[in-house]
C-alpha cells in the first residue's frame, strides 16, 4: 500500500521533471541547468544502485566502477562496432552487468564467515580484472578506447542534451522507485536484518544468501543501465574513464553523506555533491574537487555516520529555513555570483545546520514499565496469566510424544579438539530438556549444530523426521528449530516490536508486515516486554534483551526452542521472572532445550536432564536421578568431591 502510493508519486515527479526538458525553451531555462541536472540524475541512479546492496545490506562495495564499466562497454562495443541500435543495448548492458554482479555475489557470499572488510576488498579487485581484460581483448577495447555513436531520437525532445537528460531522468526515477519499493517490502526488511545481525537473521528464517544475491543483482541492473547512458554521455569510452576509483568514491561519498538506510539518502547526497562539485569547477578549483570529496567522506564518517536524511526527517524546518534565508538574502543583496551560487550557498548552509552537533539522534523515549510486570509469586504456576498465551497445543503438552529431534553419533571437531564426540540423543515433543555440563563440554556446540550454525564433522541429525545436516540455518528454522543467543544480538536499527515482527515475517508461517506487527505484540506480552514495544534495543537492559531474544525465537513458531544460557548474568529476581516466561512458552506446546549453568533453575524447570562432559554424553534421564549420579557430580565438582561429600 505504502509502496503503491509512493510509486504513484514517482510517476508525478518524473512527469514534472520531464516537462522541464520538453518545454525548456518556453520556460527560458538555460541549457546549462539542464546539463547539471542531467549529471545529478546520473549520480542519483549510481548512488541508489550502490545503496541497494551496500547501504541496505551493509556490504560495502568498492566495485561500482565494474558495473558502470560493463554497461558502458556493452553499449559502446555493440553500438560502435556492431551497429546495434542504442535502445537495444541499454537492457543488454543492464543484464550483462547484473550477470557480473551475480558472479561476484555468487563467489563472495558463498562463505558464511565472509566478513564485510574482505567483501569490500574483493570488490576493489573486480574493476582491475575487468580493466585488464578490456585492455588485452581487442574485440572490446584493446587499449584504443571505443567511440559511441549518437543514436537517433524523436524531434520533440529537442537537442542531444535534452535527450540525454530525459534518459538519465528515466533511469534515475526507475532506480529510486525500485529502492523505495525494496525498502518498503520484505526484501528491504531482510536486507536491514542482514545489515544489523546476519547470523541471527539467517537463524530466524531469512534466506540471507538469496536476498544478498537479489540485492547485488539489482545493484548490477541499475548500475549497468546507468553505465550505458554514461557511455553516451562521454561519447568515447576508455578503460580509465570507467574502471577507476572515481566512480566508487563518488557513490560512497554521496550515500554516506545522504544516509544509507533510506531510499532518499543517496538522492540527497548525489544532488548536494554534484552541486558542490559544479561550483568548485566553475570557480576554478578543479584541482580541489577530489580533495573536498575526500575530506567530506573522512569528516562525515566521524561526525555524522548516519548521514543527512535521518537528521533532516527528524527536524526539517531549521534546514529549510537556512536554505530559504541564505538563498533569499544573497538574491536580494545581489552583490556576488549567479542564482546557482546563491542556491548552492543556501544548500550548504542547510547541510551545516543539519550536521550541527547537538542535532544528534534523540533516543526514543522509554515508556515506563507496566506495573507488576514481574510477579514473583507466579513462579511455579505455568499457566493462567491473563490471556497472554500462545495458542495452546494441548495434545503434546504434558507427557512426551513423538521424537522431534534425533541426533545419531554426532561429532564436531575444531582442528584437533573434539568439541562433540559421538553424541546420540533423542528429544520428544513436549519435553523441557535441561542441557548441562561443565564449561567446554560441548553444550553450545550442540545448539549450533541443531540450529545449523555449524555442520557436524560426522553423524546424522533430523528434526521432525527431516534430515537437517547440510541444510542452511534458515531452512532449519522453517523446519521448526529456533534459538536464542548467549549474548543477545537484536537488530539494532529496528524497534523491539519490529525485531519480533521480522521473525514472524520470515518464520515458519510468514505474515505480511502489518499482521506481523500485531502478532509481535502477543509474543512480547508472553515475555512481558509489551511495554517496551516501541523502544530501540540500545535502550533496554540485559534482562530485557534476553527476553527479546526469546520473544523473537518463539515468533518464528518453532517446534523446538533452543535457549542458550538465556539466563546468564541476571540477578535472582530476573532469573525467577525468566523462569516463569520459559514455563509459559513450554506450556504453549513448544519443546524446549535449555542450556544452563544454574542447576537450581534446571531442577525447577526440566522434565529431563542431559549432561555433557568433554564432548560426550555423560548422563540422560529425569533430573533427580541424573543429579545424584556419581559421574555427574565428579564432572562438576572434581575427581574426589563425591567421595568426600559422602
Amino acid at each position: 500500500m505504502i509502496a503503491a502510493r509512493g510509486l504513484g508519486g514517482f510517476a508525478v515527479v518524473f512527469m514534472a521533471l520531464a516537462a522541464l526538458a520538453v518545454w525548456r525553451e518556453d520556460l527560458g531555462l538555460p541549457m546549462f541547468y539542464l546539463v547539471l541536472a542531467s549529471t545529478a540524475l546520473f549520480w542519483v541512479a549510481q548512488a541508489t544502485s550502490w545503496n541497494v546492496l551496500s547501504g541496505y545490506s551493509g556490504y560495502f562495495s568498492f566495485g561500482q566502477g565494474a558495473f558502470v564499466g560493463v554497461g558502458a562497454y556493452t553499449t559502446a562495443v555493440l553500438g560502435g562496432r556492431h551497429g546495434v541500435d542504442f535502445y537495444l543495448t541499454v537492457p543488454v548492458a543492464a543484464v550483462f552487468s547484473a550477470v557480473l554482479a551475480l558472479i561476484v555475489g555468487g563467489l563472495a557470499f558463498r562463505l558464511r564467515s565472509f566478513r564485510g572488510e574482505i567483501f569490500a576488498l574483493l570488490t576493489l579487485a573486480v574493476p582491475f580484472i575487468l580493466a585488464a581484460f578490456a585492455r588485452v581483448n581487442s574485440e572490446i577495447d584493446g587499449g584504443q578506447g571505443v567511440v559511441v555513436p549518437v543514436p537517433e531520437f524523436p524531434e520533440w525532445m529537442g537537442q542531444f542534451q535534452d535527450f540525454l537528460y530525459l534518459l538519465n531522468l528515466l533511469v534515475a526515477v526507475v532506480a529510486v522507485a525500485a529502492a523505495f519499493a525494496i525498502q518498503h517490502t520484505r526484501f528491504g526488511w531482510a536486507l536491514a536484518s542482514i545489515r544489523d545481525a546476519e547470523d541471527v537473521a539467517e537463524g530466524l528464517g531469512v534466506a540471507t544468501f538469496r536476498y544478498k544475491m537479489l540485492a547485488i543483482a539489482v545493484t548490477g541492473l541499475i548500475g549497468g543501465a546507468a553505465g550505458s547512458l554514461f557511455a553516451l554521455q562521454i561519447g568515447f569510452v576508455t578503460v580509465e574513464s570507467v574502471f577507476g576509483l572515481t566512480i566508487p568514491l563518488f557513490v560512497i561519498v554521496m550515500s554516506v553523506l545522504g544516509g544509507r538506510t533510506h531510499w532518499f539518502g543517496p538522492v540527497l547526497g548525489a544532488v548536494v555533491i554534484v552541486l558542490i562539485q559544479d561550483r568548485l569547477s566553475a570557480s576554478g578549483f578543479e584541482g580541489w574537487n577530489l580533495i573536498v570529496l575526500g575530506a567530506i567522506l573522512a569528516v562525515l564518517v566521524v561526525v555524522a555516520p548516519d548521514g543527512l536524511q535521518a537528521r533532516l526527517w527528524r527536524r526539517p524546518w531549521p534546514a529549510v529555513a537556512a536554505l530559504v534565508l541564505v538563498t533569499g538574502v544573497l538574491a536580494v543583496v545581489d552583490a556576488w555570483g549567479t542564482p546557482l551560487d546563491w542556491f548552492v550557498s543556501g544548500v550548504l548552509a542547510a547541510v551545516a545546520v543539519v550536521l550541527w552537533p547537538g542535532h544528534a539522534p534523540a533516543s526514543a523515549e522509554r515508556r515506563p514499565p507496566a506495573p507488576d510486570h514481574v510477579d514473583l509469586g507466579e513462579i511455579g504456576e505455568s499457566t493462567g496469566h491473563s490471556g497472554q498465551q500462545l495458542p495452546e497445543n494441548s495434545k503434546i503438552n504434558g507427557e512426551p510424544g513423538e521424537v522431534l529431534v534425533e541426533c545419531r553419533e554426532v561429532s564436531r571437531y575444531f582442528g584437533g579438539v573434539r568439541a562433540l564426540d559421538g553424541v546420540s540423543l533423542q528429544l520428544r515433543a513436549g519435553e523441557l530438556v535441561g542441557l548441562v555440563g561443565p564449561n567446554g563440554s560441548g553444550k553450545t556446540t550442540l545448539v549450533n549444530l541443531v540450529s545449523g550454525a555449524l555442520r557436524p564433522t560426522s553423524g546424522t541429525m533430523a528434526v521432525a523426521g527431516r534430515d537437517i545436516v547440510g541444510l542452511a540455518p534458515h531452512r532449519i528454522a522453517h523446519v521448526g528449530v529456533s534459538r536464542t543467543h548467549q549474548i543477545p544480538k537484536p537488530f539494532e536499527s529496528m524497534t523491539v516490536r519490529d525485531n519480533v515482527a521480522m521473525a514472524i515475517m520470515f518464520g515458519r508461517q510468514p505474515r505480511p508486515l502489518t499482521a506481523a506487527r500485531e502478532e509481535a505484540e502477543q509474543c512480547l506480552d508472553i515475555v512481558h516486554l509489551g511495554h517496551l514495544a516501541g523502544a530501540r534495543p540500545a535502550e533496554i537492559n540485559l534482562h530485557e534483551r534476553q527476553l527479546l531474544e526469546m520473544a523473537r525465537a518463539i515468533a518464528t513458531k518453532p517446534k523446538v526452542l533452543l535457549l542458550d544460557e538465556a539466563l546468564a548474568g541476571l540477578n535472582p529476581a530476573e532469573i525467577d521472572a525468566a523462569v516463569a516466561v520459559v514455563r509459559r512458552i513450554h506450556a504453549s506446546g513448544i519443546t524446549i532445550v535449555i542450556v544452563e549453568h544454574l542447576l537450581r533453575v534446571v531442577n525447577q524447570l526440566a522434565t529431563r536432564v542431559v549432561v555433557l562432559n568433554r564432548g560426550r554424553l555423560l548422563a540422560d534421564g529425569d533430573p533427580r536421578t541424573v543429579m545424584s549420579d556419581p559421574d555427574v557430580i565428579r564432572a562438576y565438582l572434581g575427581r574426589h568431591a563425591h567421595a568426600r561429600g559422602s
Partner: protein
Amino acid sequence: MTTLQAALSGALVGGMFAVMAAGLSLTWGMLRVINLAHFGLILVGAYLTFELATSWGIDPILTIVLTVPLMFLVGAGLQWAFDRLGVEEFASLLVSFGLLIIVMQTVSNVWSADFQRMPGDVNPYATQSVSLGRFVFPAPTLIAFVFAVVIVVTADQVLRRTFAGRALRAFAEDRAVASAFGIDHRRLGMVLAGLSAASAAVAGMLFALGNAVTPSTPFEWIGVVFAVVILGGIGQVGGVLLAGVLVGTLSAVVSATWSPALSPLVLFSAIILALLFRPYGLLTVRGAR
C-alpha cells in the same frame, strides 16, 4: 630459462610488495585500522625521495634518513587522531579512503599528473644490475628485496621477543584484558602506526628507485598489496614476505609466458580464489576455539 629468470626477478619485486604490505598488515591486525591512506604515504614517500634526490642531490637511498622520521610522525599523529575519534575497522576503511584521495590529489597539484622519474645522474641504481651466474637482476629490485628481508625479520623478532611486541600481540588478542594488565595501548598504537608509516617511506623510496611515479600509481598497488596482506595472514609479518614473493613470481611468470597485460587478470583471479579458500591467510591454520 627466461621463465626461470622471470620467476626470480618477480620474486625480488615481491620484496617491494612485502615492504608495502608489512605496515598495512600490522596496523590492520594489531590496531584494527584498515589504513588505505598507507598507500598515500607510500606515494608521498616516493615523491619525497624523487624531490630530495633531484633538487638537493642526495643519494636516493639516503633520502630515507629524512623521510622515515617525518613519516613516523605523520603515522603516529594519524593514529592518535583515529584513536581519539574512535575510528576503527569499517569506519577506518572509509576515512582512510577519503584521506588517500586527498593525498593523491594534493600530490597531483604539487608535482603535476605527469610521470616523474629520477634522472640517471642522481639515481645510479636504476641502470645497474647484478649478475649471479646465468641470471641478471636489476639493482633496484635486489635492494628492495634486501630491505624487505631486513624489515620483515626485524619486525617479526621485535613482535616475538620484546616486551612491546608481546604487549601488542596481547592487545590484538584481547583488548580489555591487555588493558587491565596495564598495557598502554595508546602509546604502543602510536608507535606501531608510526613505524608502519616509516616503512611506507622506505617502500616509497624503493619504488622511486626503479620506477616512474604518477599521482595515480597507488591504484596499481592497492589490489596487489591487499592480496599480499590477506594471503600472508592479517597481522602476520612473516607471511607478508612469503605472500609477496609468491605474488611477485606469479605476476612475472604470467607476464613472461603470455603477456604483461594478462598479468593483472591472472593475478587477481588467483587472489580471489585465495580469498575464497584461504581467507585467513595461506599459512594460518584456524585454531580450535
